[in-house]
């Protein structure tokens, strides 16, 4: 019956504020304060969803988190949200929702025909069939039918914030017990209290109480909460996870009640809560009763009927009947009568009920059916009639028919399940309490207390008599899990096939695996299983609850750290200059560096070729700042470095520089670079670009954990300095134009030497090493001068034809020259002997990190992959890094191409690789394989360009 605007007095909706919305394209009107579910009920919309497997027509079952039927597709386009619970969607102007998992719509769904084949589709039927001819032939069909709502097709227009918060006491749930606990804790003004409640407004079940006393109490409590400065209240916030060390995760809904139009940029806020003590006041969820066709629209939980009547002011039906196995539903029925709702009958499976309740019900003119069961329901898309039978004894068997009973609303109560999900996640133990047939907290594992209904403290005794399923009638249509269409017969079948562990039953029948995560079906399922296996419920046990308590927006876990914020880029000191020079930036170990500088009309290859020619013929400038610069200080610095490097550091003189290799303890080459001795107790250690912090941590770990007696301090000075590489035959003459106290003349400053001094008025350090094969100066100045130095050198070099060059050009140049690049030309198996350093190892008198591993049997394998040059035999042939070198027989791998470029300076391919036994096989011809193509190549010494090594002295 429609009652859009006319609601009962006391209702917490605003009759003065009508709100328009649409469902499945139909226009409706609700009131401010409604949820989509209450508004749909107000408009007499019976069928709001379809079940997952059989597409049974379904109406609203509950009034909150426990809802298993009323799942809708909320909004459209980029704002769409599948599987939204109508009971949790606050109504807002212009709301658009559609039914799901149905065609053409939930009201008349063609897939509903599946219900006719229920017999053929018992639990896990799919494991027993679809094998012929193969699962493939069937899968496409099953895939199409499965699923509920539809995923968005475009990016989320809203964002999500993450917020950390620390509190001494965290209270979850702002019902009566939660409010009491929060106010109690807040008496100590030094105690930071966080009160969290998931509903639109605080109050919990008090919001559905018709009693003026309750409402007054709530108002007063909320006033006091507001007055307490040490209480922070988070409303519309659901605590979803309870992790180790009293860390909780919660989701605050900031904009969902305003809809796409009204919402700000932030949709939800994800809270990480660090709690001293936690109080869980999470209430309890009512259980359905299990009887034939108990899933018909019009059959609701009694607690939901109470909510819709008192909180939302709905009458719901003309004939409201209650069906229960405990006292709480009786009180609900009487409350309804008091506000004038048409409660016509109460059916109770218990033969005897508390006489006082009985008396009050009779006085209210309610027909009573004690010791009676509902054995069937009728009504196509809405409830019309109940079929009743007497129960014998304590309800174990069915007796005589008790006729039929017309009604349009059935309010059922199978008892209550304390909401202990979070408690269970916290590691707390549970105990099964027979009297009320529910699990209650037993022994906590963390600093948490559970209060109120969540702790099994019901305001008045339930006098419950469990009935897990209806005896004497077929279990086939007695639903346990409404969402996934699990019936009592499915659970019995599982037991019959010896799936008797509760986890097996859950997985075999999918009971409790639906989106409501078994909030209404878990305990009933246990009950049915216990009966089927003749075990008491405690022996059957319960499944473990896992986060999230309630499904949680994936975007909220991600927060703002997306796109450019997903992983921080590191920027070069002269970044702006590179942008101005048209750099093509790429990600090199989190550093944003120019790959090359394509000029108008140039593609990447052309740019690299041009830059490479310029460096060989004139001069080029590279921002080399990420070059690792570690400073090692202390009286024991030399001793330490001698243990760290493969090389003998004892003989390194002050002022001298030496190329060195570093291994890990397994003997694998992890880094190389130039080590400079600045003073007896001060060394400058260069690492591969991007390797600086890794190597820094490697050294720190040895100093702090193994050699704690060595007085050594290691600092990572990489970003203190901007380092520019000036390279090419004209490099020196360019540098000479800059005013400095360092003589960079050929004789004064030779290859592999280091100088410190001042350059254009700033401190500077210059290393003469070469990674290009040309004369190179690696010039470091304070980072904030990096851009100025870049500009100065470009200006000074303009006449000499200086060009900026990028990393890809550097890689081409060093490949031409045959210089090893650790990480590219080595892999996680490369040992020094594979690089020709076996001799150096033998010569070194002392132990060093990784040395012992080199003499394990693997180190002597003849077919170790060793660093080599490769010369493609076909003229003008090309290959790629990643191609394989094949064995002589040509059917398996004997190495890889690790660096491959086409050299614009030599006009042929330059190729490096690691190949089995290469150091002994120089001159041999091997086969290279890539993308189905084979090529022939000769193993040669690395270094096609300037083998004599004159250029870098030039």
């Amino acid at each position, binding site marked *: 019956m429609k009652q859009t605007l006319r609601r009962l007095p006391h209702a917490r909706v605003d009759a003065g504020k009508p709100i328009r919305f649409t469902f499945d394209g139909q226009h409706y009107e609700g009131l401010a304060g409604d949820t989509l579910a209450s508004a749909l009920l107000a408009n007499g919309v019976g069928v709001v969803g379809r079940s997952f497997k059989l597409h049974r027509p379904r109406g609203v079952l509950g009034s909150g988190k426990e809802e298993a039927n009323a799942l809708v597709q909320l909004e459209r386009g980029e704002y*769409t949200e599948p*599987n939204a619970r109508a009971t949790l969607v606050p109504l807002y102007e212009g709301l658009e929702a559609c039914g799901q998992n149905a065609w053409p719509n939930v009201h008349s769904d063609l897939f509903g025909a599946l219900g006719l084949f229920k*017999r*053929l589709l018992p639990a896990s039927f799919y*494991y*027993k069939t679809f*094998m012929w001819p*193969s699962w*493939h032939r069937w*899968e496409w069909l*099953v*895939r*199409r039918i*499965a*699923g*509920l*709502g*539809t*995923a968005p097709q475009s*990016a*989320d227009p809203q964002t999500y914030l993450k917020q950390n918060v620390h509190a001494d006491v965290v209270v979850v749930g702002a019902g009566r017990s939660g409010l009491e606990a929060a106010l109690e804790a807040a008496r100590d003004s030094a105690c930071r209290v966080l009160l969290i409640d998931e509903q639109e407004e605080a109050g919990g079940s008090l919001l559905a109480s018709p009693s003026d006393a309750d409402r007054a109490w709530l108002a007063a409590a909320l006033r006091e909460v507001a007055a307490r400065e040490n209480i922070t209240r988070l409303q519309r916030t659901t605590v979803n*996870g309870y992790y*180790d060390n009293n*860390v909780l995760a919660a989701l605050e809904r900031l904009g969902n009640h305003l809809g796409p139009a009204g919402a700000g940029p932030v949709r939800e806020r994800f809270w990480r809560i660090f709690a001293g003590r936690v109080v869980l006041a999470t209430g309890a969820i009512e259980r359905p009763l299990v009887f034939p066709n108990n899933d018909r629209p019009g059959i609701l939980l009694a607690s939901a009927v109470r909510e819709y009547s008192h909180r939302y002011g709905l009458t719901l039906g003309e004939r409201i009947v209650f069906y229960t196995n405990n006292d709480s539903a009786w009180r609900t029925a009487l409350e309804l009568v008091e506000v004038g709702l048409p409660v016509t009958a109460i059916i109770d499976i218990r033969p005897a009920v508390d006489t006082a309740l009985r008396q009050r019900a009779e006085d209210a003119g309610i027909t009573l059916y004690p010791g009676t069961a509902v054995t069937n329901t009728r009504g196509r898309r809405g409830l019309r009639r109940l079929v009743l039978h007497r129960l014998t004894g304590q309800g174990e068997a069915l007796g005589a028919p008790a006729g039929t009973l017309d009604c349009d609303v059935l309010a059922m109560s199978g008892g209550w399940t304390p909401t202990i999900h979070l408690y269970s*996640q916290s590691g707390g133990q549970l105990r099964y309490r027979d009297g009320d047939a529910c699990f209650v907290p037993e022994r906590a594992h963390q600093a948490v207390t559970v209060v109120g209904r969540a702790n099994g403290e019901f305001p008045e005794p339930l006098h419950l008599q469990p009935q897990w399923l209806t005896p004497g009638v077929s279990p086939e249509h007695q639903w346990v899990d409404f969402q996934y269409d699990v019936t009592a*017969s499915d659970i019995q079948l599982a037991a*019959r*096939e*010896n*799936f008797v*562990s509760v986890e097996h039953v859950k997985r075999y029948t999918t009971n409790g*695996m639906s989106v409501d995560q078994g909030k209404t079906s878990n305990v009933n399922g246990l009950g049915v299983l216990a009966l089927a296996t003749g075990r008491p419920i405690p022996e059957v046990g319960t499944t473990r609850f*896992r986060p*999230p308590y309630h*499904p*949680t927006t994936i*975007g909220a*876990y*991600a*927060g703002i*750290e*997306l*796109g450019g*914020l997903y992983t921080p880029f590191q920027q070069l000191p002269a970044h702006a200059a590179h942008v101005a020079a048209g750099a093509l930036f*790429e*990600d090199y170990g989190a550093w944003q560096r120019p790959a090359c500088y394509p000029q108008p009309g140039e593609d990447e290859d052309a740019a690299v070729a041009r830059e490479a020619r310029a460096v060989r013929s004139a001069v080029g400038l590279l921002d080399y700042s990420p070059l690792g610069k570690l400073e090692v200080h202390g009286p024991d610095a030399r001793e330490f470095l001698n243990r760290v490097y493969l090389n003998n550091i004892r003989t390194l003189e002050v002022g001298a520089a030496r190329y060195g290799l570093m291994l890990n303890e397994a003997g694998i080459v*992890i880094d190389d670079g130039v080590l400079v001795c600045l003073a007896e107790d001060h060394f400058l250690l260069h690492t591969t670009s991007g390797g600086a912090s890794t190597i820094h941590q490697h050294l720190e770990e040895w100093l702090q954990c193994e050699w704690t007696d060595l007085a050594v301090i290691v600092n990572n000075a990489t970003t203190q300095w901007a380092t520019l590489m000036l390279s090419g035959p004209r490099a020196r003459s360019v540098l000479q134009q800059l005013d400095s106290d360092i003589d960079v003349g050929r004789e004064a400053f030779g290859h592999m030497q280091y100088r410190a001094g001042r350059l254009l008025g700033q401190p500077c350090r210059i290393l003469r090493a070469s990674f290009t094969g040309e004369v190179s100066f690696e010039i470091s100045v304070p980072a904030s001068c990096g851009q100025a130095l870049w500009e100065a050198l470009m200006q000074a070099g303009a006449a000499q034809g200086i060009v900026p060059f990028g990393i*890809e050009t550097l890689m081409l140049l060093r490949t031409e020259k045959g210089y090893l690049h650790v990480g*590219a030309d080595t892999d*996680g*198996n490369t040992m020094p002997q594979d690089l020709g350093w076996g001799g150096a190892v033998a010569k070194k008198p002392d132990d060093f990190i990784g040395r012992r591993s080199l003499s*394990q*049997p693997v180190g002597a394998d003849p077919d170790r992959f060793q660093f080599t040059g490769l010369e493609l035999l076909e003229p003008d042939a090309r290959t*790629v*890094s*990643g*191609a*394989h070198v094949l064995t002589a027989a040509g059917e*398996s791998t004997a190495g*890889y191409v690790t660096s491959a470029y086409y050299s614009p300076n030599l006009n042929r391919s330059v190729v490096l690789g690691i190949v089995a036994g290469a150091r002994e096989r120089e001159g041999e011809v091997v086969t290279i394989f890539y993308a189905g193509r084979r090529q022939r190549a000769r193993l040669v010494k690395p270094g096609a360009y300037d083998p004599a090594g004159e250029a870098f002295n030039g």
Partner: protein
Amino acid sequence: MEKYSAYSLLKHALTGHRRWPQAWRSPELKSRYDVVIIGGGGHGLATAYYLAREHGITNVAVLEKGWLGGGNTGRNTAVSRSNYFYPESTRFYEHSLKRYETMGRDLNYNIMFSQLGILNLAFSRHELEIFRRWATAIQVQGVDCQVMSRDEIAAAVPLLNMSPTARYRVYGGFMQQRGGISRHDAVAWAYARAADHLGVDIIQNCEVIGLEVSDGHIRGVKTNRGSIRTDKVGMAVAGHSSVVAAMAGIKLPIVSQCLQAMVSEPVKPCFDHIVMSPMVHCYLSQSDRGELVIGGGADTHPSYGQRGNLPSTEAVLNAVVEMYPAFSRLKLMRQWGGIVDIAPDASPIVSKTPVTGFYISTGWGTGGYKAIPAGGETLAHTIAHDRPHPLVEPFSLDRFAQGRLVDEGAAAGVAH
């Protein structure tokens, strides 16, 4: 064993499914077995099945401390693939993949193996080069694998973030079309049903509390349900290997860590492949039920706590939204953790041990599920012949003293 088929389903429908036989028995524990398998997960059950079928050894007990498939078999993301780098690995996993392709009919149990195809994505120039090396390695070994361009990837995964300005730009990738997902519980149940039918005793809720070893030989097994005499014990207890091996006085090169997986609420089909990426670390597929099945990396600290941890959940979902912006408004439904045993080279250990008659299958790391058939087959062979199966010779326990690690990560050049 009653044959499962559309016909049997129809037949039983007529009697309301009240006559289905048990999938497996619940036998009493005997005092003597020829072989005792510790661990009633996929590997243990498969081992027992192959012992009985391939080697005629049927006096076998499988001891499970909890419920069948309750360990990592029931906690993984159900992916099977053989796109490995080293021949040793590829040979083994390809053998396993072939078994998956025929398992449904071999065991008369539909494990719903969907060969959706596994796509690996590269996010940098360097990674692309490594992927070329990797893909070529697979091809050289004659296994299907195709390198894919940006455009091909964009077409195959419409919801993937292909923006050229994305923090991690997709450079390319490679696909193993035969890779797929299956129903993990079904795999355990299928092997259990088949093994039971061949006479294997499957004992649930039976925890091993000790191993009897004297003069270097295994003699028996002590359980909470009594002692067993036996000369051969196979260990397949992922997530517990160090604990059980210690009962035989053996220390392993293993560290146990927690690996999480999670699923979203079910939605209509929108994701047709299995997509993985090392750099933006998550892997994703959509189950037949419609849930997005999501995995990531293992927690980096040793753990036996089979539960989720918030930081890793956030990290993997952060990666999901970065790669698939449209999934931001979907809801995470369930999340869980399993304990994985990881060897120094992240490769398995299927091996004899210093204790005669004690055989171990461990070190499956994050990839044990895909190895179930081959793992069972090779462990069964190793037990039956007291000699490693050729497929697992490279995966022996003594490879570490040789320094002959089988380190896939190292081969990819990403070890450092």
